[in-house]
């Protein structure tokens, strides 16, 4: 027996505008992971990610009619909303964000130095990289999160950030260079 096809995002948004609760639940369950992870990777805080996820879907609840497929994918639409909330919360908490911590955990270590890497568990390395990503300025951090962590293509990332694809490429290039630089700096500190 053929299963009925799952409704498209566009159909769900239309139903949400008409106060269809099951459509809202389907839409939420389909996309909450994307929004939550984006917010978590941008802020590094689960409580912020939770708050942003809630805020994003509140917006969807109130303005589902406003989504225009011609302006980009649903993922781009949702991350675009999430980004505004994340940047607002980063701005709010700016005095408390650690931009650089030379005395803290090493953010990264050079490849090839197996002895040093052996001392760290995989989780510790991930935590270190997470800190390095979170220490990036927001404009660089968001391209790393979108392209490297969320695996959006450049065109989608450009759509979310409202900039040219070339800008995404150059920011990503610069962001990766900053991360590698931080790896080297931390390596020197260890030595």
């Amino acid at each position, binding site marked *: 027996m053929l299963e009925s096809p799952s409704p498209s995002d566009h159909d769900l948004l239309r139903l949400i505008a008409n*106060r269809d*609760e099951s459509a*809202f*639940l389907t839409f*939420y*369950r389909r996309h*909450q*992971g994307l*929004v*939550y*992870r984006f917010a*978590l*990777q941008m802020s590094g805080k*689960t409580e912020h*990610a*939770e708050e942003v*996820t*809630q805020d994003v*879907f*509140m917006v969807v*609840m*109130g303005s589902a009619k406003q989504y225009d497929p011609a302006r980009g994918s649903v993922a781009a639409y949702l991350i675009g909303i999430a980004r505004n909330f994340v940047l607002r919360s980063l701005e709010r908490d700016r005095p408390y964000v650690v931009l650089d911590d030379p005395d803290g955990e090493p953010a*990264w270590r*050079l*490849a*090839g130095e197996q002895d040093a890497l052996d001392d760290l568990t*995989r*989780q510790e*390395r*991930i935590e270190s*990289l*997470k800190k390095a*990503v979170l220490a990036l300025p927001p404009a660089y951090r968001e391209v*790393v999160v979108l392209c*490297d*962590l*969320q*695996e959006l293509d450049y065109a989608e990332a450009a759509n979310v950030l409202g900039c040219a694809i070339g800008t995404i490429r150059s920011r990503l290039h610069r962001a*990766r260079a900053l*991360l*590698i630089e931080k*790896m080297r700096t931390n390596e020197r500190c260890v030595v």
Partner: protein
Amino acid sequence: MNENDQELLEGLRSLANDGPREAPARVEERLVNEFRRRARVRRNTIWASGGAVAAIAASLAVMMWLAPRQYAPAREQTAVVELPPMIEVPSPSGEIAMNFYALPEASELPPVENATVVRVELPMSTLRSIGFQINEERANEAVEADVLLGQDGLARGVRFVE
């Protein structure tokens, strides 16, 4: 791509797969509650606006049904028409008092505590039912008026825009 780049990308791939992948269940629960609350408010708003329109219609219908019996004989007996009493209520901002002519049955209703003013078009003949003398030739013409509704949705007074 050099060794550093390769190492970085591998690390980023691990980071992408690290940590919770979904929002906690309480977020869904809160959103569903909010969705239901909004749906309820929307339904109530629709009912309230429907109810207000029905209340106006009912008030006016009752008023027009009662009024000829109360006021028409008076009009025939005397050329001097006494205007209906005035109701004074504060404007929504609370700064300016608004005066309305009391409707015939308004004195039997509870005092206005929470007023709503609705602009409507009434046939000129309604003025007669409230106590005004009108030109009978223009009785079928419409006149713009503000109707004062009480907290129960029942009309208490009227004032004429023109």
